[in-house]
């Protein structure tokens, strides 16, 4: 069926692609553009492993069509590090042992990134609410909360 020529900006760089109407954004990101840091963990929009920022807002990229992102800005985990400098959220996850298998981690960090843009000093409860669309099976969330608090304190 119909193909669409789309243009998306990922982590500041423009990309073009020819996509089928039904191509899911997560497959565009992973399989076509090869940013494999964004993961897939379910088929019912529950796990958040696929979380990326679309025009600055964290969304589940398995439940958005690639064509819907035409002309928009995407940010993935690969965009967190700037000039060889880890983002405080990345530092926080490393320092506070916020990851184990690492599979949920990119999605979790993108949600955290957006949270801290909105609210520079979130409480434990606010953090837990904010990451409630991201499942982690390994950590029990405690150290994830601490990682995000670490980043909140470090961010200007």
């Amino acid at each position, binding site marked *: 069926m119909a193909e669409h020529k789309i243009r998306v900006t990922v982590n500041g760089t423009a990309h073009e692609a020819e996509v089928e109407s039904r191509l899911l954004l997560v497959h565009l990101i*992973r399989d076509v553009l090869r940013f494999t840091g964004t993961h897939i963990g379910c088929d019912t929009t*529950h796990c958040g492993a696929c979380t990326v920022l679309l025009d600055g807002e964290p969304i589940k990229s398995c439940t958005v069509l690639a064509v819907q992102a035409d002309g928009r800005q995407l940010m993935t985990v690969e965009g967190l590090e700037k000039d060889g400098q880890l983002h405080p959220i990345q530092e926080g996850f*490393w320092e506070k042992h916020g990851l*184990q*298998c690492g599979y949920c981690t990119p999605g979790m960090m993108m949600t955290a990134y957006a949270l801290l843009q909105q609210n520079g000093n979130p409480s434990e409860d606010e953090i837990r609410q904010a990451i409630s669309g991201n*499942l982690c099976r*390994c*950590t029990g*969330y*405690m150290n994830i909360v601490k990682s995000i608090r670490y980043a909140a304190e470090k961010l200007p």
Partner: protein
Amino acid sequence: MVPQTIAEVGGMGHSIKRKEDPRLIRGKGTYVDDIQLPGMVYMDIVRSPFAHAKIKSINSENALKVPGVLAVITGETLAQYNLHWMPTLMSDTQMVLPTEKVMYQAQEVAAVIASDRYAAADGVEAVEVEYDPLPVVVDPFKALQPDAPVLRTDKEGKKDNHIFHWEAGDNEGTNRAIDEADVVVKQDIYLPRIHVASIETCGCIADFDRVMGKLTVYMTTQAPHAVRTVFALVAGHVGLSEEKIRIISPDIGGGFGGKVPVYPGYVIAVAASVVLGKPIKWIEDRIENLQADSFARDYHITAELAAKKDGTMTGLRIKTLADHGYTDAAANPSKFPAGMFSICTGSYDFKHAFAEVDGVYTNKPPGGIAYRCSFRVTEAVHAIERMTDVLAHELKMDAADLRLKNFIPADKFPYKSALGWEYDSGNYHGALEKAMQKIGYAGLRKEQAEKRKAGELMGIGISSFTEIVGAGPSKHFDILGLKMFDSCEIRIHPTGKAIARFGTKSQGQGHETTYAQIIAEELGIPAAHIEIEEGDTDTAPYGLGTYASRSTPTAGAAGAMAARKIREKAKKIAAHLLEVAEGDLEWEPGKFSVKGAPQKAKTIQEIVFAAYTNHPPGMEPGLEAVSYYDPPNLTFPFGSYICVVDLDRGTGEVKIRRFVAVDDCGNIINPMIVDGQIHGGLTMGMAPALLEEISYDENGNVQGGSFMDYLLPTAVETPQWETDKTVTPSPHHPFGAKGVGESATVGAPPAIANAIVDALAHLEVRHIDIPITPEKVWKILKEKGVAL
């Protein structure tokens, strides 16, 4: 334990940051689905809508017309190569693809190979299968009745649905203890089917190189070597020989036991790659993962606990019916069809105990894997910890007092249990007393009494568990005959850096860090200078893999033993360099010095360099060692957990107010990682206690087979865990460690269940099966007339 090494070395006891994290926090991990090979095509699977049905026909015509579809593989295709059945780890048989009938809903029926995922999915929808439904057996009790349809018609002469009978202990003595007891409590306890649901599902890329005749499989497996051997055994007759098979287990997004089995999907992908000569990628989706991959638990337990009036426990009898689905594909050591279930005497000093388990076939997916626990230990612990509370209730004793009275005393270790295990070490009183102090047990009991007067429902639950991990000594433990040792190979480079390879495979446990710390501890080489590799069967030494908390007890021990071999040789070199006798040398982490002349010393780095540049005459140059570690015994981690809950009398909702966990896993390699493992384990213990269950309706339709109904806790449902520890080293482990990754999953469910039952104890409630949903609680509230 006070660390023996300085922070820069980062040996045991240092909370060093994880070495695997730099790639994972950048999104640069490599999970199976991240790999794209040239010419790779995709596989998707057609699954059965019926739980039991004859396959009348499979029509691929329309599927083959879908643009991009290359092939449809059925049981008939595989039968040509005699690959349509495969053995299970328990020496049963399992269909790869069926030729006659399907035995559970979501069973693999055919596979579609296509140029991309989208075409493969379209192809699956276009395959037409005609079924003839057969009577379905869902209830394991009914499965054993004489009129039940026999499910395994493939097994010649099989006349019933019984799989095995297993027993341990002293039947007569236990009978006598029960007859003579002052009190006996009896309770049915069900542990339902659950699923590990690691956030990464299972999958593989099978890549058969026709020119070299070599098969490389990238796959989500916790046990790559065992898989290689299984593949060689299963497909030897079609020319796949073990040296031509390479299993690569890349980064794994959580395993917890679910990535131990060899699923049909892997085997079909391999067959398809051999037939088509192309790399085949198969990644299951979440629904397939929940509905068709191996389940955990499904144990129907009846327990009887006998005691004297004063609370002294005298006998335990446990009878269990185990629902295995249509084949016994449990991931247990061969001689243990019920795993380590005989740890069910727990932390208590029983003279007499008897346990028996019968395995049964039903029309459900196979399994019997662990759920972040050592083989069937959660089932055992849940039984004994629930029964202890039932007894306390019967005797009107405090649940903590009853435990303290019956614990195996610290001076009785090593302790031989009534069911035959030798517990290595323990201090159960110490752990429970610490937990009680931390949570303010006495104060909570007072508060509870006041709340009850005011009509509020608050409960306090204890679980004092003993785990059994680190399988295991070769005398008893094997998987398909392969002894359950594990291995490490260390190579020290001339400049004092090292690479070490292991037979295990981390799925998030942090082996790249903790193994480096073990070697750093033994050799004084900074952990930062030690590369750890696992998961590639072409390079790693043979090992049985990572599950059942066995990595530290076995491969970790192998790491220490290999390092000690290196240290032995280093000592010889040091003696040569310092021109003294070996006996005159003293070791401290990182250097050998001459006794009484500490300024005469050689650092490990100097010694290593000499091994390549100036080795003693008559000695082989180089510095490397291998150790295959066959543990003398298992290790027995333990702990005491206390949970406080408040119940909503309107809705039946349970709120965990506090949860204190005191764990003892012996000497600790990395406290930060251990704490993280416990947080995760507690959360995976809470999940089945309150939320998770997979069940079947009378037609064998799976209920709870997607994340819409299979309820993984989010950060909001998960409470703040309060962790603490005691340290009782294992006497037989090279560095005194025990396993820890799973203790909390095992210990948490009964603590939560006990707390909820305790909140209702004054209403004469004795037991509630997990998951304890709001509705279950509400029904009791209503029955007792206290619902709002």
